[in-house]
């Protein structure tokens, strides 16, 4: 308050000086008396304003108090406040905006408490009264105003609009602009223009002007409308299409040929963009599903190719990998909370080693005795899978595990049309590529890989030339299980993790392995890509179940015709 008075005084003084200068200016015209009179008039005007201004200020403050009162009222009044805040962002003074920003932010964050004396905002600097800015603590029994969906939308817009004008950091302003872009048509037009005027960053300013143009779709000026159309078709998506299509009913469409041309061109551009986006989305979804299938199947491919053992416990290895990831997360949470976001990376060796150890134990205890009896080993691995599921269930419980979503797998980036590039699936794809690289490297470049390939091709002969077949079996089983553990890690951000999760992958991974051809990595990759893509293409047409059914039937039919799969190691067909 005092500060405001001070600045008022200063401004009056400067006005006085200006008046003086004005007077002196007109003195150059030579009449002392008129200077004096002018000075008087000027000062009178200033005084008038000086009297009026406080009442303006008082009125403004009364307006603010009124807003505070409404803030602590019911849903309808909250809506009024929201709209008023947007208005302040567009038309208000810098002061008002500075006052409004923390208030709006606090309402969204639930850091505003309404009590008997008004409202209190709790922020980083402590808690202070929303109206007077004095430090005070909320009285007992206060409550936060609750935002229903309509009001939430209004307040989110208000926060973004205020941030657009007042945020110190250009990235924040850019983010606010992106939020507001989607509802540009419903906002006061001059909001963007005003923001652009005071914007220092050139790039941002250009964007703001563009958004202002886009908001002018329904303005009176046809040139502005055409500009808006061009701007809108630069970011094609279905929302834009709906907006532009609605213009076909507009009278200007029929009347103005240039406008008609612009609208048609815009529709064509947008439709092209949407189609491109849809194609990309289908490819991306297919790729992500394929990467999941690949990771689940690669371990199985190694084991099956080598030993002919169908490992029905593979799904449970995936599950164990996911659980190990969770335990690493919990460990980090307790011991090194700063590193918590990196748990996915830190857990990589843990997931691999633990599941590899489980796999090796399984092989040594159980499967070793069954290697000539594949059907029995099938039953045995199923028994182990049952055991593992229930062991985990009894130990950890049946509920889904709570995973922190690190920043590098959260959200997505809109690319073109309606295609959004989600980071968690990108993580899975990247991880799958990494797994592929590691496996390929292992198989091609290490002695173990050489042994595995040899034993896969001809077990007896490999034994004859001195390869320790049993040891290769054990190591390969460990490798296969470890790869499944890595799959579990990659899947943790995407799927729910519970004891049953492995069951969803068994049939699919087997189909991938058998289709691709036993024992070949290339086969697994191609089969995974094929199955993933076909599945994703059919899904929008007939639903997820029909897609799965059709894909499985196709694979079964294919296998009857060519049972060794796509890329088989040549051998005698019995």
């Amino acid at each position, binding site marked *: 308050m005092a500060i405001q008075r001070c600045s008022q005084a200063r401004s009056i003084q400067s006005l006085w000086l200006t008046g003086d200068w004005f007077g002196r200016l007109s003195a150059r015209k030579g009449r002392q008396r008129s200077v004096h009179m002018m000075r008087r008039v000027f000062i009178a005007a200033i005084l008038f304003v000086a009297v009026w201004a406080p009442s303006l200020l008082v009125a403004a403050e009364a307006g603010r108090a009124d807003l505070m009162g409404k803030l602590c009222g019911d849903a309808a009044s909250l809506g009024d406040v929201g709209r008023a805040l947007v208005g302040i962002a567009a038309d208000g003074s810098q002061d008002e905006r500075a006052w409004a920003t923390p208030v709006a932010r606090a309402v969204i964050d639930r850091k505003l408490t309404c009590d008997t004396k008004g409202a209190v905002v709790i922020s980083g600097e402590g808690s202070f009264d929303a109206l007077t800015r004095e430090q005070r603590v909320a009285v007992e029994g206060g409550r936060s105003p609750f935002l229903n969906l309509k009001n939430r939308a209004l307040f989110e817009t208000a926060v973004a609009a205020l941030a657009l004008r007042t945020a110190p950091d250009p990235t924040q302003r850019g983010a606010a602009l992106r939020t507001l872009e989607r509802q540009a048509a419903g906002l006061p037009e001059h909001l963007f223009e005003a923001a652009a005027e005071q914007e220092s960053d050139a790039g941002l300013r250009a964007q703001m002007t563009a958004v202002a143009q886009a908001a002018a779709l329904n303005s009176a000026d046809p040139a502005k409308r055409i500009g808006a159309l061009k701007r809108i078709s630069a970011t094609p998506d279905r929302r834009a299409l709906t907006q532009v299509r609605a213009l076909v009913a507009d009278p200007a469409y029929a009347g103005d040929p240039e406008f008609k041309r612009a609208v048609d061109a815009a529709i064509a551009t947008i439709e092209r963009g949407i189609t491109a986006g849809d194609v990309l989305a289908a490819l991306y979804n297919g790729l992500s599903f394929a990467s999941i299938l690949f990771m689940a199947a690669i371990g199985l491919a190694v084991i099956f190719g080598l030993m002919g053992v*169908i490992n029905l416990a593979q799904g449970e290895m995936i599950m164990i990998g996911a659980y190990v990831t969770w335990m690493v997360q919990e460990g980090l949470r307790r011991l090194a909370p700063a590193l918590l976001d990196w748990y996915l990376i830190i857990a990589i060796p843990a997931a691999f080693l633990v599941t590899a150890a489980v796999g090796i134990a399984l092989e040594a205890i159980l499967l070793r005795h*069954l290697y000539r*009896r594949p059907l029995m080993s*099938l*039953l045995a691995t199923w*028994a182990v899978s049952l055991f593992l599921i229930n062991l985990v269930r009894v130990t950890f419980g049946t509920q889904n595990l709570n995973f922190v979503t690190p920043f590098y797998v959260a959200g997505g980036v809109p690319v073109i049309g309606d295609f959004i590039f989600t980071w968690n699936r990108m993580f899975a794809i990247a991880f799958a590529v990494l797994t592929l690289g590691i496996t390929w490297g292992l198989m091609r470049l290490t002695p173990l890989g050489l042994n595995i390939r040899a034993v896969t091709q001809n077990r007896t002969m490999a034994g004859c030339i001195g390869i320790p077949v049993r040891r290769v079996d054990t190591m390969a089983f460990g490798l296969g299980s470890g790869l499944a553990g890595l799959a579990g890690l990659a899947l943790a951000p995407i799927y729910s993790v519970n004891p049953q999760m492995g069951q969803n992958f068994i049939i699919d991974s087997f189909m991938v392995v058998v289709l691709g051809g036993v024992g070949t990595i290339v086969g697994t990759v191609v089969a995974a890509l094929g199955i993933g893509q076909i599945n994703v293409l059919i899904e929008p047409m007939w639903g997820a179940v029909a897609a799965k059914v059709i894909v499985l039937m196709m694979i*079964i039919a294919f296998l009857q015709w060519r*049972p060794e799969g796509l890329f088989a190691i040549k051998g005698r067909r019995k």
Partner: protein
Amino acid sequence: MKPLASDRAFLILLAAVLAVVLLLVISIATPFGLSAYLANVIGQLAAFAVLALSLDLIWGYLGILSLGHGLFFGIGGYVVAMHLLKHSHEVTGKVPDFMQFMGWAEFPFYWTGFGFFPYALLVTAVVTLLISGVFGYVSFRSRVGGVYFAITTQALVYVAMLLMFRNDTGFGGNNGMTGFTVVFGWPIGGSRVVIAMAAVSVLMLGLTLLGCRMLLAGRFGVLMIAARDDEVRLRTLGYETLRLKLVVWCLSALIAALAGMLYVPQVGIINPRLLAPELSLEIAVWVAIGGRGHLVGAVIGAVLVNAVKFWLSVAAPELWPFILSGLIVLVVLVFPNGLVDLAKLKLVRPTGLKHMASGTPELR
């Protein structure tokens, strides 16, 4: 070949089965005997035993492991459920639940005629033969066997389950079909009817046992075992194994369908869970535990495992999966021929040819 009377274990089992039938008949006619609840459980166990027999026929004696026999079990079950629902509808006029929530005013066209039991029976046979025939023919002709065949049958039953889960398919979807009120004109809930159905199940078990025995005792049985032990050699000798395998495969499928027809009226509901891959795997487990390659083994395995499962789901539900997995591992590692190994020295002499008693060579 060998006269029937020489196999002690088989005869004992047959006698036991007949005794149970007699017991059940007594229970119907007089107030003494078993309660309806016990009779119902026995009837279900008998249906499972028939199912185990069907798998044992192709796995124990022909060496083909099918992990999708639940499919044929399900076919029989669904057809008999359709019959019961249609029949109930004709008698009581009540519209089945699944039609109510799908908003259908009348039965889909493929439901016509199922009120008539012989038609339902015919449809079961035809559909089973069609599916098993086509699948078997294509697989055996491509010489798909062993592990590949097992996985493909798993995929097949999984596909069937997914299809049946959809309500649009018209068989009650995930809800399944329940609310059977009438069987052959009698109320399905009545205790006498329950015991009678159990008696029929056990009787069918006995008949199936006899039938399989007769099949195996002849030249057919010798061929089957030869095909199991070394198919290439048999083919080299000039026998056409494709036809042999196909016939036994289709027969096995029919028996499984029969088991389904016996099971569903007794349990009062059918739902796609029956087509779950895990259940088909469990059939193989019953046979493995009891002793594959022995008809007696299959029956005992099925009865024992399911009896324990029933008991444990109420008494100690947490324990059942651990016990099952432990049992499987035990059987696989220590008793490769199932319980038959345990009793090897005592009562039981294995059926069929003598050299089967010593470790049957596994499939590669």
